[in-house]
């Protein structure tokens, strides 16, 4: 049975995560919250199965809810024909192994990142690329993201596979998100919106608890464009100033019923119960790795010298 938590939309989830963003105290609060919730729920529905608590009444570790935004690649591909729990579990173990070697930080589309890759063809044997993340996808070890930058007036996009062992370092120079999930329209935008200096340094965040949303509205170049942006309901683009017939045709072609199609959304997502189980499994290891890195960073300058 789907719990009411399942069908929360992305934006609700965002809001939730923004309210509960304090990472250090979060897991504790989650752990203490849940036993209370489950006992309440148990009293409401007498016959329902208690998934989050043991019969003995032990508290079960539950990952903080924003893990599904910080680590979306841990969730498997929702296509039912290809799902197998054992394979997903083994893949997650491999992912955690890789994460113990390299830090794959939290990032979103719209964040500016720098990736250092081992490259036999470059003079230093390492190639560093700075760019804005315009899209991310894939699940498991196939997770990827695309960085875009404009180099010598030439737009360049590079797709990086997050778990590829050639990657030496992934840094997030500016952690923020935009109004859209996919920034592919930057290809048709003025080049200044995709240009970021390679010498850019990592910016320190003032408020650690909230990932800021950059409400910038990008100006597009005059048509022709690569895609029909007027049909995509983009929030981060300035008024397209197209003739009315484009918008009329967009209306004809639109599928407004899709936002009411529950089964469509269900098929595209992993149910909340499974998500909780998955993140509960990886939660402790990820936290440990995070802690170790923090300690190393604090000790870093003193220990290296």
């Amino acid at each position, binding site marked *: 049975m789907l719990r009411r938590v399942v069908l929360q939309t992305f934006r609700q989830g965002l809001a939730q995560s923004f309210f509960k963003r304090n990472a250090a105290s979060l897991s504790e609060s989650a752990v203490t919250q849940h036993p209370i919730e489950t006992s309440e729920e148990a009293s409401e529905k007498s016959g329902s199965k208690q998934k989050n608590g043991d019969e003995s009444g032990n508290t079960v570790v539950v990952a903080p809810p924003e893990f599904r935004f910080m680590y979306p690649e841990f969730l498997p591909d929702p296509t039912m*024909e*290809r*799902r*197998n729990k*054992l*394979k997903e579990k*083994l*893949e997650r173990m*491999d*992912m955690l*192994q*890789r994460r*113990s*070697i*390299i830090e794959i930080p939290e990032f979103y589309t719209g964040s500016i990142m720098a990736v250092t890759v*081992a*490259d*036999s063809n470059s003079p230093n*044997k*390492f190639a560093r690329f700075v760019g804005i993340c315009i899209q991310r996808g894939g699940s*498991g*070890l*196939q997770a990827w993201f695309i960085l875009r930058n404009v180099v010598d007036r030439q737009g360049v996009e590079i797709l990086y*596979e997050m*778990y*590829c*062992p*050639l*990657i*030496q370092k992934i840094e997030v120079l500016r952690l923020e998100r935009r109004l859209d999930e996919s920034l592919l329209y930057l290809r048709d935008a003025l080049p200044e919106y995709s240009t970021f200096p390679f010498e850019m340094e990592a910016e320190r965040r003032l408020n650690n608890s909230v990932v800021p949303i950059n409400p910038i509205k990008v100006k597009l170049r005059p048509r022709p464009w690569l895609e029909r942006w007027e049909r995509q309901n983009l929030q981060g683009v300035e008024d397209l100033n197209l003739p009315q017939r484009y918008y009329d045709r967009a209306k004809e072609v639109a599928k407004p019923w899709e936002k009411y199609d529950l089964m469509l959304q269900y098929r595209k997502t992993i149910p909340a119960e499974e998500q909780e189980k998955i993140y509960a499994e990886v939660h402790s290891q990820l936290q440990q790795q995070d802690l170790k890195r923090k300690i190393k960073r604090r000790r870093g300058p003193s220990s290296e010298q």
Partner: protein
Amino acid sequence: MPNSAGHVKFVMPPIGSIGSGLASYRDLTRTLTDEKSTLYSALSAIVYMLQSLNRSPFLLGFLSNHEQVRNMSRVKRRNTHPGYWLSLKNVQKKDDKISADNLRFMREVIQDKYKNKSPLKVSELQIEKTEWDPKTKRSGVIARNIGRQQMWDKDGNKIVCTVLHVLDNHVIRYIPPEEYVKTSRGAIHFKNKTPLGCLVVGAEATNPEKFTRQYCNLFAEVGLMPKKTLSRFIITPNAALPPCTPITAGHFLVGQAVDVYGKTVDHGFQGVVKRWGFKGGPASHGATKFHRRGGTIGTGRDKARVWPGTKMPGHMGSERRYNRGLMIMRINMKYNVIYVKGTVPGATNSIVRIFDTLLPLRKFKEAPPHPTYFPPEDGTQKEEDIWDSRLHVFGSPSISV
């Protein structure tokens, strides 16, 4: 478009030699030194002489060296009928109205029956110690294809592997060669060959309620719960195993080549473009209702009918296939999982059978775990996760080129 009929090709002597009779014969003898049998070469010599002297079609018809070149579109490619080794199942939904009490009683009986009869432990099995030789055929294994996972090698190249989960395989019975040859299947298999033994292996233990008493008894003799899948593996007698022997992922070695047998993905009724790779017609430029059709199906002159085997739309997939020579890149002993490089016939979560490869250049040179792998008695396991030396292990430092 289907090609014209498979035609008969004449192997002609070089054109220059036809003029000078003697020179041509010398050429012919030179070319014929490669032939294996002297009789054949003598005959062909006569044939070539005749060809060079007189290329009358009447003489060519009977004595010529015909090399039949069959067009592969004419060769029967598919057989989706169930194998003749499978017996017809009469699956009818039973309308036994069993009361809830009786159902509960049935379950208690099953519990009692199987509680005391546990499968024999490895230490209790009587396994004969036999020698391995290169001609040994070991047992295979029943596995489930659980998906694909990518890994990287030490140069940073991506390797896509299919993950195969070796199910709970147990040997059900061994049929020695003399007995197996007498069965209908064995007789066909070993018609003009030396007979080999047959090992019946089962996998996926399930609830006995689902099966008939006769089927459950097959396993009950051995002390096992009934298995969903059964398979026969043809083995040499020295690789025989006693009933109730478990076969695990350790049966294989990392770096060896295996053949995987399965039923390909069922695509259903498909058109000619997907099924046979036809190009179809132009998408535009005035093409009227001709975008994914086959086009012509015959010439109109040759034989004046549609030839059997003409490529047309129809059922595609669900065929029995072997993918041979796949290399094992990684074995996880704890979860009984094998990572095999490449792809395997069938969809995810389908059952496949894994055998040691029969490709001659990829066979074993040294003894594998023979007759199968047995974990050491004192509990000291081999490593849990065994990787091929070429693979980059995820817990090791990043690759620097």
